[in-house]
């Protein structure tokens, strides 16, 4: 990050959401990297950009395809890399042909010559990076958005080498670690494919149980299954779906219809309030031991620093006890045992990551197969090699621009997009407890032009309504927004539950809902916000 020439920060306000990572980005910028920020909002991060490209919400594929077409047209694609390491180029090339600069401008709103300049600078750079966050993935075509960015990177050979690559910034401290450990519907620990019989057999042998050869459900699929009454019992660990999921009114409804809801939580949440059984748990990051994996695949130790509140139990203890009550004593004495088992079942992945080595190196980046391996700073350098060493080719993917499922219309003329504040986190369960001087609670951020149109000034109460719900919230004028675009966070659901507005149009591949775009209407509220709030 600190030693690269061009950075495309795409759908990310890392200045707020990943502040310390942004330090490293700024070191790169101070070292001379040219920064493009692609974001509908001129966010805090975008204000650092050499070029801010204010795309229409959900037009990322259009931008990416337009850049790709321009790169190919100008002959700036990395032909040697493509022929050595990629497949599907011709099909891809054909698929982006219709995305001329003019079409790109039409679809994204970004002037053609700006797209052209970005495409050329990215393609010509010696080292270049694409980094993204939820602006790419919280769409109904999330996986396609990511594939569109991967296309650009392999088109130009900006992968698998120092100072280049694709860098998804994880929103939660262990969302990567969850995946590492197999908490993905079709994966086993170490991202091993559950659908491959040989792999499944190995785990079956190790665990002494039969594994079903069918993938599980994504969260969004679970909600649909609950709606169908197909899923009737739910065990929720450290998640607040009643407030954090799109179309919250609907989610709360299906949760309330469950036969059995178990919630394991560190403090009271909306979801916990609905539980039939509540399991008070120790906070995993400071009241118990374990590991987490960060965005750069670095596995690090978490340690018990303080005792949990009275009655709250270590999560490993809870799981052990539940297993016991279900008739099997897992007999797991401590987190290190769990970790070492993981190293055993995923040796290529984490074999070299003993607790002792994790301590010694301030964490290690996977894959780290043996005790002499320093870990991997970046992946995919194999693509620069030939023959067997290269391994599987990197495929181009044909992806098409669709735009958000719900587009603004006469009844709901605004696009609502969502994001984070610097000082708060998710639904505020953990950040509501400290006295942040930055905290301004939930607001409906609105462009100065629209504020005039709506007749609202900063502080005035507005009513925001979507096809799914309605709420009142104070308005706040933000020059970073353009007319037609409004913004809210998800941090203050007890004050304004943004997710009653959002749409549960989810991506079939990743299961992520389109938090980043739904159509709303905004009017000056006639009723004031109750004083106690």
């Amino acid at each position, binding site marked *: 990050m600190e030693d690269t020439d061009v950075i495309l920060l795409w759908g990310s306000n890392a200045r707020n959401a990943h502040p310390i990572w942004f330090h490293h980005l700024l070191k790169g910028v101070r070292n001379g990297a*040219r920064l493009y920020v692609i974001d509908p909002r001129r966010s805090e991060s975008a204000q*650092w950009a050499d070029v801010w490209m*204010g795309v229409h919400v959900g037009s990322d594929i259009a931008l990416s395809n337009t850049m790709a077409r321009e790169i190919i047209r100008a002959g700036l694609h990395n032909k040697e890399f493509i022929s050595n390491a990629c497949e599907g180029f011709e099909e891809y090339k054909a698929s982006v042909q219709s995305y001329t600069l003019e079409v790109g401008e039409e679809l994204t709103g970004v002037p053609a010559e700006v797209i052209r300049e970005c495409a050329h600078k990215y393609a010509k750079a010696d080292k270049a990076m694409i980094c993204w966050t939820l602006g790419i993935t919280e769409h109904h075509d999330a996986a396609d958005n990511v594939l569109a960015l991967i296309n650009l990177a392999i088109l130009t050979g900006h992968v698998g080498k120092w100072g280049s690559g694709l860098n998804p910034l994880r929103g939660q401290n262990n969302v990567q670690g969850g995946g590492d450990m197999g908490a993905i519907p079709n994966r086993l620990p170490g991202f091993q494919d559950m659908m491959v019989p040989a792999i499944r057999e190995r785990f079956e042998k190790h665990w002494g149980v039969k594994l079903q050869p069918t993938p599980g459900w994504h969260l969004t699929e679970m909600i649909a299954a609950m709606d169908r009454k197909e899923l009737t019992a739910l065990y929720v660990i450290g998640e607040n779906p009643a407030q954090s999921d799109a179309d919250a009114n609907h989610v709360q409804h299906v949760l309330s219809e469950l036969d059995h809801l178990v919630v394991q939580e560190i403090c009271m949440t909306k979801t916990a309030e609905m539980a039939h059984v509540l399991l008070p748990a120790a906070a995993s990051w400071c009241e118990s031991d374990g590991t987490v994996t960060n965005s750069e695949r670095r596995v690090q130790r978490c340690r018990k620093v303080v005792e949990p509140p009275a009655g709250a139990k270590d999560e490993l203890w809870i799981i052990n006890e539940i297993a016991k009550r279900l008739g099997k004593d897992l007999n797991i004495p401590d987190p290190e045992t769990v970790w070492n088992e993981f190293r055993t079942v995923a040796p290529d992945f984490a074999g070299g990551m003993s607790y002792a080595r994790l301590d010694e190196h301030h964490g290690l980046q996977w894959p780290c197969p043996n005790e002499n391996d320093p870990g991997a700073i970046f992946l995919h350098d194999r693509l620069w090699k030939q023959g067997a060493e290269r391994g599987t080719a990197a495929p181009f993917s044909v992806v098409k621009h669709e735009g958000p499922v719900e587009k603004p219309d006469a009844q709901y003329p605004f696009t609502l997009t969502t994001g984070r504040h610097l000082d708060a986190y998710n639904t505020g369960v953990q950040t509501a407890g400290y006295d942040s001087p930055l905290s301004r609670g939930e607001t409906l951020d609105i462009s100065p032009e629209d504020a005039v149109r709506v007749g609202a000034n900063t502080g005035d109460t507005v009513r925001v309504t979507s096809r799914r719900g309605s709420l009142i919230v104070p308005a706040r004028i933000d020059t970073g927004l353009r007319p037609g675009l409004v913004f809210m966070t998800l941090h203050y659901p007890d004050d304004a539950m943004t997710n009653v507005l959002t749409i549960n149009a989810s991506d079939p591949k990743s299961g992520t809902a389109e938090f980043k775009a739904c159509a709303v209407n905004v009017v000056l509220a006639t009723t004031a916000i109750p004083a106690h709030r």
Partner: protein
Amino acid sequence: MDIKLLDAEATPEERQAVDARLGEPHAAWYGTQARTTRELHVAFGGKDQRDRRHLLLPALQALQERIGWISEGGFNYVCERLTVPPAEAWGVATFYMMLSTQPRPKRVLHVCDDIACRAKGAKALCDELTGQHGGPLPHGIGKGDGHAAGHAGNGAAPGPHSLARRDSAGRIVIDDSHGAWTTSPCLGLCDVAPAALYIEAGPTVVERSLGSVDGDFAMGLLGGGAEPDDVLASVGPAKETQSTQNTQTTAKYHTVTGCLGEPRLLKRIGVVNPTSLTAYQMGDGYEALEKAFELGPEGVIAELNAAKLLGRGGAAFPTGRKWDAVRQQEATPKYIICNADESEPGTFKDRVLLTGDPFAIIEAMTIGAYAAGCTRGYVYIRGEYPLGAQRMQHAIKQARAIGLLGPKIMKRDFSFDIEVRRGAGAYICGEETAIFESIEGKRGEPRNKPPFPVSHGVFGKPTIVNNVETLANVIPIILGGGAAAAKIGTEQSAGTRLFCMSGHVARPGVYEVPMGTTLGELMELAGGVSGSGKLQCALLGGAAGAFVRPDEMNLRLTHEDTRAAGVTLGSGVVVAFDDTVDMLDMIHRIAKFFRDESCGQCVPCRVGTVRQQEALHRIAAKKPHGSVQDELALLEEIGVAMKDGSICGLGQTAYAAVESAIKRLNLYPV
């Protein structure tokens, strides 16, 4: 970058002033009010915008000149235009004493109360003004305050002189029917002492250097009298010529120049119209540049080396070596800076050159740029020299108009241009690395050396910094040859030197004499001791210099002789004091000067200058901490620590004059 602005709006006048200096905003994101559709989808900024930081000081000056002070709204607008974080801009705005972050009336009279003017009654003038008008405006801001010392509230409450109040809408309203006054360190007008600088903010700022100021005149100005004339403004030839010793009074009122022997540096002063390039060219103007082109870069440097030209700013570094060092650097672009921030108390020679012979400075800089491969030049002129800045700007414009600056100078493959930057009231910006910081739009805090300017100068690039007088030497050296120039003066101190004669001398002015001339001869050239007629002592070299006694008139003015005597030529200052002068008061003023002018960066200087001042006052008040001897020992230790431990020359010399008063004048007998 993401900056957070204060909740304050600029007035239309403030916006106009800033826009006139910076140009119209190029995008809504940086200061316009309406947004185009295109702007809602693209913004350019980043490095290009951060690289505009160097315009911060000019933009703040634009507000100061238009409004008379820098309001929150105006300040905000500058930050928005340049994307400078407000706290950073605040650090800059509060560093320069000619910028006010406090409400002030449009008319402010800056009255010099420094040593030379003090010898000529400045203290009495200030007392008279205090009595008749009220006390001076306070300087700067207090610790942790957002407002000037003595003012209450966040730029809100009316101060005793600001005559400011808030109206019902909370806007600050200033009564401009009366002006205000403030004290000033040396204004570089010592030859016309007691001096003042009159500034009237407005659409066209009025800045006038004033001499022989008395109470009635000052009160008249404060009360709204007519706009005064600049004491230096005359462009014509001398009105009277004193044929003896080739002395001429040249300026409208008082400026005196003179020389022993053939003038080299003052040749055109008062003779050639400084506002006419044609007049300059009718003499031998621009012949030196042509000759330089013939000599080639190495030839030019060889001539300077042959002339044994040493820098005239105080440090006496060989100029040829400096140019050569920059020439050999690989990094580009390279810069040449004319250090015209002459602020050493008692110094005004550069002022005479800037106002009297601006084309020679441009030509010399162009030669330097050619020799070292510089493409850009700055003339950094102290804020107290409005006429100098004006004359330089005018001259640059004329030179550019006929292709003597800009691309392809004299049709050669050589491009070079010059920009004038004005200081804003900070002695420290005469320090060569502080100049860089100031030009870059920062606080004028000197850098630690090494790395040296020849490799890491302004914007981190190779840079020549030459004093005005040094540059003035270049022309005669190139024209007459280095060897011939080296014959003037002594073996180790070649050439002529300008001396600024002020205080109790009969004809204060700038005198050019060959190095090696004695102090006595110089005094005689300036008409001898005036006042009581009896010399008590003279300050040689400026506030960073040392005192000499009447029995030292045989001192030869060379680097080697002064070094041997434990004094310094410094910036060529001689301030004479007759036997009626209260020297303790002078010492206190010098101590105050260093305390006021310390940038505050390093501990020895920031605290040491204060501890020095306190000890001197304790002794004078006959309340020493311990014995006087203890205090003198303490002063010595403070002085050694300042000299050995400070980052730059300011701290390193802050004890020099005090030390000489103790040791050479025996002003503090034990």
